[in-house]
């Protein structure tokens, strides 16, 4: 391979490109937004795009860096969204907006992180692909729980019920979560600026983690779990660190997302959303954060852009997805490309040194 790379410069390259594109987007879009030069629909997409970028980067930590498949990332987003909304409403109008936002995002992150821990403890110690199944179920369970959860707040604190508003037994309080109607009366305290800050924090945490002792252990586990164990890496511990970090960041994104709307329903964070985020990651590139940012932004906006195609919108969306997948980094496309490259190489180097075959099979 001609390609040489240094760990340090790789770290620098990733940092510069990712922070760079985010800051650039901010510097261009923020003044336009402030001046009211952006269309209403585009302006409304800014915070959601920020939230989805955080979702995709955090999912990439689990899928691309750790190599575990998660099919319920929207579940963590949901936990963050509703706990963040409850926190923000409970704090009341007397609290400054910034504080409501920050505390809401933090609480959303912590609760999602704890859910990640609870899922990870039983599942990540197993060998095999159980995480995909369990996270899939987790996402659906969260959706169904929120759908029949009623939460209200009054002077005495928070009230919970699984049946209806009346059974919250509040005299003079505010109902925050109304079962299938979702969370209502959320303060719209999220802004483009706060979305950008959350992305930068996410990039800082994830890129630093990947390029550290812990990150090396995580990548080693993805590369070869048996070898990683053989050099003394505690598999479960490092899988947990990656998964919990990923879940907590998703929770923060969820809280940010919720506080961009005055009401939000659990259906928003269903299986389709989890898959959508996974598509952003796959198209953006496994373990590649710059690509993730670009893929998320483009793919999130595409359905809007294609709106003029009317009923063919989703059909065109699907075709574009397939084309992009083939053109970039699907394993199928990669294999095809590698095969062609190998074929050409072999044509020129046939007489040269033959590759030594690996020794016989062993029984691990």
């Amino acid at each position, binding site marked *: 391979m001609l390609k040489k790379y240094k760990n340090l410069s790789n770290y620098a390259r990733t940092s510069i490109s990712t922070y760079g594109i985010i800051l650039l987007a901010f510097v261009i879009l923020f003044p336009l937004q402030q001046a009211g030069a952006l269309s209403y629909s585009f302006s409304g997409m800014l915070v959601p795009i920020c939230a989805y970028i955080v979702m995709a980067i955090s999912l990439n930590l689990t899928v691309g860096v750790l190599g575990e498949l998660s099919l319920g990332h929207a579940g963590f987003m949901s936990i963050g969204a509703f706990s963040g909304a409850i926190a923000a409403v409970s704090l009341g109008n007397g609290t400054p907006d910034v504080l409501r936002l920050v505390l809401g995002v933090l609480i959303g992150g912590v609760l999602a992180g704890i859910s990640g821990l609870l899922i990870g403890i039983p599942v990540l110690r197993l060998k095999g692909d159980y995480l995909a199944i369990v996270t899939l179920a987790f996402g659906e369970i969260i959706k169904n729980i929120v759908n029949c959860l009623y939460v209200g707040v009054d002077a005495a604190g928070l009230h919970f019920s699984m049946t209806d508003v009346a059974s919250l037994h509040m005299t003079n309080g505010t109902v925050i979560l109304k079962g299938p109607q979702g969370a209502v009366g959320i303060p719209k305290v999220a802004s483009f600026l706060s979305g950008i800050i959350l992305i930068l924090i996410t990039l800082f945490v994830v890129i630093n983690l990947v390029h550290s002792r812990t990150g090396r252990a995580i*990548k080693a586990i993805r590369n*070869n779990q048996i070898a990683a164990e053989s050099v003394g890496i505690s598999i479960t511990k490092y899988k947990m660190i990656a998964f919990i970090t990923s879940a907590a960041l998703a929770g923060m994104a969820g809280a940010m997302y919720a506080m961009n709307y005055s009401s939000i329903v659990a259906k928003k964070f269903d299986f389709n959303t989890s898959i959508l985020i996974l598509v952003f990651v796959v198209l953006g590139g496994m373990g590649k954060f710059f690509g993730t940012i670009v893929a998320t932004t483009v793919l999130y906006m595409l359905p809007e852009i294609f709106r003029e195609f009317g009923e063919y919108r989703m059909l065109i969306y699907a075709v574009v997805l397939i084309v992009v997948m083939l053109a970039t980094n699907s394993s199928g496309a990669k294999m095809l490309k590698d095969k062609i490259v190998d074929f050409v190489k072999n044509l020129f180097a046939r007489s040269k040194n033959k590759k030594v075959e*690996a020794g016989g099979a062993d029984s691990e």
Partner: protein
Amino acid sequence: MSKMVQVPSKSIVPERDVDKTPILETHHLGIDFGGLTAVDDLTLAVGRTEIAGLIGPNGAGKTTVFNLLTNVYSPTRGTILLDGKSTAGKSTAQVNRMGIARTFQNIRLFSDMSVIDNVKVGLHNSVKESLISNFTHSFGFKKSEKEYTSRALELLDFFKMADLAYEEAGSLPYGAQRRLEIVRALATNPGIVLLDEPAAGMNPSETAELMNNIRKIRDTFNIAVLLIEHDMNLVMNICEGICVLDHGKVIAKGTPDEIKQNPKVIEAYLGKKREG
């Protein structure tokens, strides 16, 4: 724990190590896979600075012994003592931290990571840093990273691989990949290193260099080496004690000269056509 026995086979522990606790002992070690007894009644000891060999025909159970010693498999019977301490119930990672490292018959590198990062993963437990510093790259992060880098380069340099440090491990030539696996194992600072067919697929000059390196490992790091190998020239030249397995059972133990003359060995192993 099975009944304790006298340290067996003192004869194959080199003179200089005899009065010290063997770095590795097994007592009546055995494992069954369903109906198949892959290893049975294996009792051996490896001296603290011994180069020992484990040989036998294909399918004899040699790799299975390594998997038992590193707790990849839990033994059905018997005990393993590492530096006098039982490894029963420990995980593979814990056993490594107790002082045993290995290479694999079919190479298992972290192939899309750089060469130096492979070694740094090996150093994982020797340079500690706080978890928070991994997220922030501060609180002493730079200092410990520097230490990782210098120690990894030092190890790579020892095996003349420093110039390959920033190559992708999976893109190295075959011989270099085998060497890197050894470097990675040594990075964990073991008391004994297990090499599973280290010369497989190597040409004669690479094999000669490997022999030198194995001696260098023992002399410089002052540790024991237990190796599985089909290359009889290599085994007879560098091993001080040899254990021969056939169908999971020990059929002979002794010095290279004793092994060469043992009729059972000749029949079971040396007499047969080598299958690689």
